[in-house]
Structures are given as C-alpha cells and as structure tokens.
C-alpha cells in the first residue's frame, strides 16, 4: 500500500538524517571558515525536515478523516499506526521543530558544538513522530527514551554553565526514574496479558492487582515527562536553562508528547479501573493551581513560563479527564486543541523571550537569566519581539481574540455538558485559574511597554531576521486561531475521536 512507504519515511527520515547532519557539520568545520559548519548543519536539518514534511503531507492526504480507525503498518516486528492523535502530535512536532531550526541560526552561532545541537534537535523531532506512531508498549517506550536522551543533551547544552549542568542532571535522574517505572509497568502488563500490542492488551485487560500497579506506574513514569504535579519538579530548571529554542520545544511539544505516551499506555488499561477520568481531572486541578501559584512569585521570565506550562498541562488533562469520565469526545477534542494552541503560544513565548535574552545577554556573552525588570521598556527597541511576547502571554492567559481563549472555551463547554455538579465546580475552578494566571502574565506586558528602558535594553544588540520570521509566523497563527477556531478542526476532531476510540470506542 502507498501510505506504508509514507509512514516509514515519516518515522525514519529525521532519525537517519541526524547523524548525517552531525557529519556534515563536522566536515564543514574542517574548512575553517566562520559559520560554515553552522550554515551547513542548519541547511541539512532543513532538508531533512523538508523530506519529513513531504511524507507527513502524503499521509494527511491519505488519511480518512471521518473514520476513527488508524492506518496500521507493520515492518518486521515493529508495528506502527497513524491515527488522528499521531497526525496532530507529529504535525505540531514538525512545525515547532522546523521553526526552531530556522530560529536557532543566530541564537546558536558561535556556540561550541552547534552541529550536535541541530542533529539532536532533528532526532528529537523524529523521536516524537515515532512516539506518536507507536502501536505497542515496547516501541512506545523506545521512542520515549530516544526523545528523552536527545533532550538531555539539549537541556545541558551549555556544558560550561553550572546551572545548566545542574538542570541537566536533575532532568536526567528524574526522567530516568520515570522511565524505569514505565519499564516495570510494561513488564507487569506483559506478565499478565502476554502481549505488548496496545489493541490486544485492551481486549484482555482486567482489574487484577498487578494491572492496577502497572497503571499507577505508567501514570507516574510518563507523568514525570508530562509534568504532572507532583512529578514535575525537574521542569522549571530544565526549561529555564535550555537554549531558548529548546525551551520552546520542551514546553511546546515534548511534555505533550509525554502526555500522549501516557494516554496511549493507559488506553490499553482502560478496563482496569473506572477512575481514569477522575484521576486525570484531579491532576488537572492540581497542575493548574500549583503552576499558577508558583508562577506568581517568579521574577525570571523563563522560569515563569516553565511554571505556566504546568497549569496548561492541567487544562489539557482536565479536558481529557472530562472526556473519559463523561464518555464524550468533546473534552478530548478541546484538550488536544489546547495542546496545539499551547504549543504555538508557548513556543512563541519562549522564542520571543529567547530573542530578547539573546539581544540583551547572550549576544554580549553573558549567561545571566532574563528577569522581568530587564524587560522594562524593551518595546521601543524590539517592537516585534515584545509584541510577540505580549500576544503569547495574553493568549496563554486566555484572552480573546487569541488561540488560548478558544481551546479553553472548548474544554470548559465539555465540562458543563458533562452535567455533573463536581465537574461544574472544576470548570469554575479552571476559569478562575485562568484569571489568576493573568496575575503573572499581565505584568510582563506592563514591563515591556514602559517608557524608561532598563540598562540591559539600553545596551542591547539588534535582532537578526532569522529570529523574527518564526515569531511572525507563530504570532499570526495565534491570532488567526483565536478568530477562526474551526481552522484546525481537521486536526482536532480526528484526534479527539481517536482518543475516544482507543479508550474503548465510545
């Protein structure tokens, strides 16, 4: 069949390209010309991603949107599947991956080991696509680990920096702890059911004690990557210390990939317990509250955004929890819509903060963190970056006419439609949390539009075009989706239906 080639290309291209990108970078480094290595490896990355895009578009065109069934393809003993959720996650990973490659051109220039950066970035994108297409627990775990491995190296990229190394080690240890829990859970599942195929497990899973333990281990293990409270403690350091393009990837799509892995794993165990929906809603409430309250007290912009990611994961799991509890796709659709929007908005926020960080500190060779007071008066010198940052954080705060408003609305509609008193309270709680989040987003906007510039702004350098283009694209997407939410319905509806289908076909 035609699409099987496309699936294979989609999954394999970025992974096979990654070492090539590294080699090309090294080869051009030998030429000794300044910038040759970075130009070459960046160009190679873009070519690799272009090939992946081609395969992705082929699959999207093939994919029958109306049916909830996945395209399945088995190569050797590796089963792959493409359903609505895979398409959504792969699309988001590719979009952000491509924009970050473009963005990193000047940001990473002159850094030691640039060719590794691009190779790892492309490999990480590929790992997420693979994760989205995995159809059995073992391969899900393998892709998950590849994603984790590539991201450790990227988080600790500034290996001369103490803070960056500390963040990397914490991330490594906690993530590895999570992985081992997942591996244990897979073993338990295999022991009980004798299969690792997600579909077949689902058919034979019952609520034995071992399966319950496996479920808990899946939640905790994948929950570390998905930043569910209280498994989230690695996140603020990692997101704040990574190069900003990587922060955008981590916050915008990597933790969401963790969430998708979590969903895939527990979908097989759906029949084990009735409390999946409740569990997710509890995590939703916890994440929103903890993320927002801690973010209120942050003064470093990247840390603040990292904590805000916690609360946004909260909205997503709340939507998914409502869907599982009420048995309707609406919450899941809202949840994945928010997943897209959060990816775009948080990606934009980190790219904009990164641009300002670059202009105010990095271009001066400083690795000081960017604080809110550094941003004072930045709008006059950096109108685009500050506008992008303002739009991104206001969108995250759920203000119309920006994307975040619409996806939050969709989640809350699903909550009220569930017609359950406690879920209604949860909806009110979520809405109040959205208001609370403005308490830390709005001061950022106030700061950038001050008239008295900070010392950092006065000494700042200019912003290269390669950083501005990805910001403009994301900014437009955030506004357009806020005015016309139906534009990505072709992605969100199949993804929502796919989630419901894997959870036992409501």
């Amino acid at each position, binding site marked *: 069949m035609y699409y099987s080639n496309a699936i294979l290309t989609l999954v394999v291209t970025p992974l096979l390209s990654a070492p090539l990108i590294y080699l090309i970078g090294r080869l051009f480094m030998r030429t000794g010309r300044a910038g040759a290595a970075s130009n070459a490896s960046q160009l190679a990355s873009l070519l690799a991603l272009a090939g992946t895009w081609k395969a992705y578009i082929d699959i999207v065109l093939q994919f029958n949107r109306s049916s909830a069934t996945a395209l399945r393809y088995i190569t050797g003993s590796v089963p792959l599947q493409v359903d609505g959720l895979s398409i959504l996650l792969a699309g988001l990973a590719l979009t952000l991956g491509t924009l970050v490659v473009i963005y990193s051109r000047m940001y990473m220039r002159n850094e030691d080991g640039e060719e590794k950066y691009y190779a790892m970035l492309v490999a990480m994108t590929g790992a997420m696509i693979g994760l989205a297409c995995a159809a059995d627990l073992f391969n899900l775990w393998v892709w998950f680990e590849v994603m984790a491995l590539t991201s450790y190296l990227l988080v600790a990229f500034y290996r001369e920096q103490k803070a960056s190394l500390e963040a990397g080690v*914490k991330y490594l*240890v*906690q993530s590895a*702890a999570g992985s081992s*829990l997942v591996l244990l859970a897979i073993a338990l599942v295999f022991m009980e059911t004798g299969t690792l195929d997600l579909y077949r497990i689902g058919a034979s899973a019952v609520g034995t004690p071992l399966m*319950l*333990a496996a479920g*808990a*281990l899946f*939640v*905790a293990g994948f929950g*570390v990557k998905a930043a569910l409270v*209280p*498994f989230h*403690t*690695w996140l*603020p350091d990692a997101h704040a210390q990574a190069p900003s393009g990587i922060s955008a990837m981590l916050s915008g799509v990597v933790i969401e990939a963790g969430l998708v892995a979590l969903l895939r794993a527990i979908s097989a165990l759906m029949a*084990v*317990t009735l*409390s999946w929906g*409740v*569990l997710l809603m*509890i995590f939703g409430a916890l994440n929103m509250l*903890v993320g927002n*309250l*801690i973010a*209120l*007290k942050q003064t470093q912009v990247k840390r603040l955004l990292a904590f805000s990611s916690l609360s946004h994961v909260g909205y997503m799991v709340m939507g998914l929890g409502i869907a599982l509890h009420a048995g309707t796709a609406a919450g899941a659709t*809202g949840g994945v819509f928010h997943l897209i929007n959060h990816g775009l908005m948080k990606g934009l926020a980190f790219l904009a903060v990164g641009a300002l960080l670059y202009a105010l500190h990095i271009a001066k060779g400083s690795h000081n963190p960017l604080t809110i007071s550094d941003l004072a008066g930045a709008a006059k010198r950096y109108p685009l970056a500050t*506008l992008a940052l303002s739009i991104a954080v206001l969108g995250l705060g759920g*203000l*119309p*006419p920006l994307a975040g408003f*619409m996806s939050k*609305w*969709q989640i*809350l*509609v*699903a909550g*009220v439609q569930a017609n359950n008193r406690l879920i*209604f309270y949860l909806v*009110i709680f979520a*809405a*109040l949390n*959205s*208001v*609370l989040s*403005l*308490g830390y987003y*709005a*001061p950022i*906007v*106030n*700061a950038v539009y*001050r*008239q008295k510039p900070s010392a950092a702004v006065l000494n700042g350098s200019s912003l290269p075009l390669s950083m501005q283009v990805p910001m403009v694209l994301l900014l437009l997407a955030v506004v357009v989706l806020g005015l*016309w939410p*139906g534009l990505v319905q072709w992605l*969100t*509806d199949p993804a929502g239906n796919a989630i419901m289908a894997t959870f036992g076909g409501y």
Partner: protein
Amino acid sequence: MTQWLVLSVIFVPWLGALLLALSSDRAPRLQHLVASAFAVVTGLLSLCLLPLVTERTVVSVAAGSVFGNFTFVPDGLSVFLTVIAAVIGCLAVIFSIDYMHGEAQLGRYYSLVLLFIGSMTGMVLTSSMLLLFFFWEMMAFCSYALISFYNDDPKAVAGGMKALIMTQTGGVGLLAGALIAYSFLGTYDIQTFLAYAHRLPEFALSIMAFGFLIGAAAKSAQVPFHTWLPGAMEAPTPISALIHAATMVNAGVYLLARFYPAFAAVPGWTTAVVVVGVLSAFLGAVMAITASDLKRTLAYSTISQLGYMVYAVGVGAVYASQFHLMSHAVFKALLFLGAGAVIHAVGTRDMRQMGGLGQKMPFVRNVFIIGTLALAGLPFVNGFWSKELVLEEGLAHGPLWAYILMVLGAGLTAAYSLRMVYMVFYGTAKKEHHVHDAPAAMRTALAPLALGTLVTWLLAGWLSELLTGSLPYHLSHLHAPGTVELIVDVLTAPATLVAIVVIAAGLLAWWYRDLFASLSKAAALPAAMAGADFGFEWLNRVIVGSTLLAGSVLRLTQTGHLSWNALGIAGGAIAVLGLLVWGS
C-alpha cells in the same frame, strides 16, 4: 447592506487599531489624524445603522464544533448602545488630540482605543453568548491596558491589574452562564435563549441569572466589585470618560437589561439586582462626597449613577434604565472630559489644589456646570428627566426602603455635585496656576456633549420606538412612553416633587455646611468608613495577600533537591495507585 454596516462598525475601528499599532511614533500628527479619521468614520457608520434596526439575524457565520454560529442582530437596544459607544468614542478621540499632545507611545494609545470601540460595538451587536463573552473580555483587556498606559507609574500598573483581575473574576459568572445555556439548548443564540429559557431546569436558570449578575456587577463597578473603578482613574482622562464612564461600564447594565425577560421570574433575582443597585447608588454617593480627587469623585459618582440604572432594571423598568444610561453617558462623558481639560491645565487631580479656576477657563466652567446640573438631577437637563423616571418607576414597582435610599442618594448627589463645582471653579485659588482655557480640539469634543446634555431627553419618544420596535421578548417589560407623555408623566408624579425637595435639601445642606459644623463629629465615622471604602478594599487585599502567600508557601515544595523530588515521584505513584484501586 445591513450586514456590511454591522461588520464595518466592528472591523473599521479594528483596522484603524491595526494600522496604528504598526505606525511609527515618530509621526504623531499623522497618528492623531488617522485615529480621528477612523473614529469619525465609525461614529458615522453607527449612525447609519439607526434606520436599519431589525430583530432579524443579519450576519451568521458557522464557526464549527462547539463554537456555534457567530451571529449579529442590530436590534434597538444593540444599535442604541452602538451609537453611544461609537459617537462618544469619536469625541473622546478628538479630545485626545489636545490632551495627548506630545505624549509618547501614541500608536499604542490610539490602537487600544480603537480596538476598544470595535469590541464594544461587537459586544452589543452580537447575539451569540460566546461572542458576547469574547468581546466582553476584549473590552476588559483594552480597559486594563489603557489604565496601565503610563506603565512607569506603579499606581497605574496596580490600577490596571486590579481592574483586569476583578472584571475577569466577575466574567467567570458570565462564562458559566453562557456555557450552561449552550449545554441545555445547544446554541449560544440569545434570542433563542430568551424564547426557550423556561425550558431550562430551575437551578440551571438561577445559576445563569446570578452568574450574569456577578459578571454585570463586576463590569459596571457595582458593590461589592466596585473597588476597581477608582483605581482605574490612573488612565488618561479621555479613557476615563470613554471607557470608565460612558461606555464599557454600561456593559453590565446592558447585560441585565438584555436578559431581563429570561431572569425576571428566577426567585430572588430581581431583589438581588435591586439590592446591588441601591447599595451602589447610595454608597457611591457617600464616597463621592468625601473624596478630594476630582477624577475619583467622578468615579464614585459613576458607581452611584450606574446603581440607579441597575436598580431600574431590578424593578422591571428596562426602558428607564436605558434612558438614564443615555443621559448619563452624555453628561458623564462631558464631566470627565471637562475634568480632563482642567487637569490638563493645572496638572493636578486634587480638588484642594484647585479653586477659582472659573474665571480663567470660562468655557470649561460653563459646560462643566451643565454636566453637573444633569448629574444632580436638576430641571430641565437630561439627567433630571431620566433620574425622575427611574425614581418614579422605583416607587411604583419596587420596595419602599429601596426607594427611600435612592432618593437620599439623589440628595447626596446634588450635594457632592455642588461641592465639586465649587471646589474646582469658585472660591479662592489655592495655588498660582498658569492656566488656559480648553484648546480647539477639546472644545470640539465638549460642545456637542454639552448640547446633548441639554437636549437628549427630547429623544425619549424616539428611544421608546427604537426599543419597542425590535425587542419582542422585552415588550411586556417595556413601559416606554413618548416624549410628551414622559414630560407630563414626570412633571405630575409625586415622586418628582419628593426628589426635588430632597435634591434642594442636599444643595442647601452643602451650601450651609458651616451650620452643621457641630454635626461634623458625628459625620466623622461614616466619612472614615467611606474613606476606607467600607471595608471592601480590605477584603480585596486579604484575597490578593492570601493568594500570594499560598504562592510563597508552594514555592517551598520546589526545593531543588533531587532526593525530595524523587520522594515526590514515589509519593505521587502511591497516591495514584490508591485512586486506581478505589475506582476498580
């Protein structure tokens, strides 16, 4: 034709906002010009809508999935408020040419003002509750951003944040209501809701009704959510006139009036609306009489006057509320812009620093006095007719205690109005100010408003036709008289006589305030209470303080130690296991 007009009063100002946002602050003259051009065109477009009023849905765009249809209905109520928003918006922009002369960041200023005008017209014209909330929040954003326009001033930043958080918190009530309506009826359409509201279960309808009341009270700065409005006075004065006096704060009254037919039967709802209105009207007036900041006095008076409108809706007098809304929008915009001219000239907002300005700025004094007459409710300017109508309806349909407090409030209003005029324009000058009368653009904005204050009451009959002609669900609640009928009605009503006596007493009480000097000790306590905002301010601080404290406490969980982090993972896993076992 109608649909293009409806869309253009929203998108023309938004286009202007976009252009100005992209414009360079190095060409301020061009910015003034472009902003005024867009504002004037929007005002004219809104006037063109007047003959096209209809109860039909003229624009409907399917937005897909749970977003319903984006619909717009230019009925009487919508078009009436569209005209108020667009015309006063246009005058405020013209006024800004002088007021904002030489200020930095004009592009941001004008683009937010135009964004606001488009959002306000959108809010009143849409018949989708989703879009209602959408525009509602956009207005909140514009309001916040303009209050904080002088971002270097911590007071302005704090005022903006407070306005944003408080109105958004109230907005949750509106959000919940809209979601409930959708989950029961499968549509956000307001007209469908008004037609089928009785099909909703009683508890659902009452959550909606009270949720909307909370949203409306927060937006219209009604007790107990009123505390953001005085803080909002840090905004440039044209913004205070436009957003925080004449247009956005009316949104709550609009919301109550719009949904009145559906909620009137909800037990306790109308009483709650009356209580909110009376408390705001009375407490607002008390606070106004003790304030010494000119703009804050006007802000308290706005709270109080909006209380009259809310009270009118509560007693079922939807027409009277809208009639007073029209008068108030005109005379309060006049007062604020007049105050803006004074503040611009003397450079302070403290009335104790003013005095004797009347001779130096006669034009401003004259128009300000016209506005004050209307605020005090003296015959025969627009505020007189509408306030009397509200009080008369209140006596006829509402509880007596409420009526008594409202009339006392009218007396206090007269007293603080006189006090304000006296402190600013008469008496001896406290300080040497090199003041000049209002320049040309300011006069251009003030003159039509002064004229309007004198004559808009003649539009009473026209307003009733506008409302009764296109609001089928409100018909049984609209006691809308013609102009002549209104004049006879008000002049012969006993309520009018009572009110005039009380208003005169209020004026005399302030004029002969020295006679009551012995009473001033007794008045010290209420004055202190009013100065402390009757404890509501304290309540705000407690809520904000405890939220921040919770944040600080939670930060302790982010220890940065791996062993604690690992414990979190282990503990979390055990808790999850417990929950899964419970559910199996």
